[in-house]
């Protein structure tokens, strides 16, 4: 969708290349090695520019020196959600449940970002027994 609008604005074809894998490392590496002529862009996310340098022993790109920022395209938010049938209605309910049943609650995370949020939640108020072991 973004590529189509950019193509209309610029009057040139915009090709979207989905380069998935390794928590965005593969795509970022490809752009870092591309010719620095402005014709290869990277749709970077938080993992790409902030987390991977700490999650990988030797990341194959430098988020500070290999890229030049152009613009912010989108903002996202995270939601803490339980099954609708659950009797947990508030964050305090969830913390109480976690403390009453250490190591019993499960947490699903779709990305590294949400996984780290779970670690942080456990560390500051949730299931301290599972902080760092989601």
């Amino acid at each position, binding site marked *: 969708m973004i590529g189509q609008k950019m193509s209309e604005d*610029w009057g*040139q074809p*915009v090709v979207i290349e989905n380069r998935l*894998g390794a928590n965005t490392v593969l795509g970022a590496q490809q752009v870092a090695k591309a010719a620095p002529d402005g014709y290869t*862009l990277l749709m970077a996310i938080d993992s790409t520019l902030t987390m991977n340098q700490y999650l990988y022993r030797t990341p194959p790109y430098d988020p500070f020196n290999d890229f030049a920022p152009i613009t912010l395209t989108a903002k996202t938010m995270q939601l803490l959600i339980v099954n609708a049938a659950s009797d947990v209605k508030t964050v305090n309910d969830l913390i109480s449940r976690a403390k009453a049943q250490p190591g019993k609650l499960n947490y699903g995370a779709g990305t590294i970002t949400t996984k780290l949020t779970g670690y942080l939640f456990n560390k500051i108020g949730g299931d301290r027994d599972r902080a760092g072991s989601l």
Partner: protein
Amino acid sequence: MNARLIALALLSGLAMGSAAAQERADAFPTRAIKIVVPFPPADHPTCSPA
């Protein structure tokens, strides 16, 4: 006299170079742009083939 001519020629060259650079920037892009999208993670459910 010669010094004035040389200075004038240099200034003209700089002006032309600057105008050419500006023209190139205004003309961007002149060919296809590639946007690499590295997410969502490969093991994410939305990555499954339709």
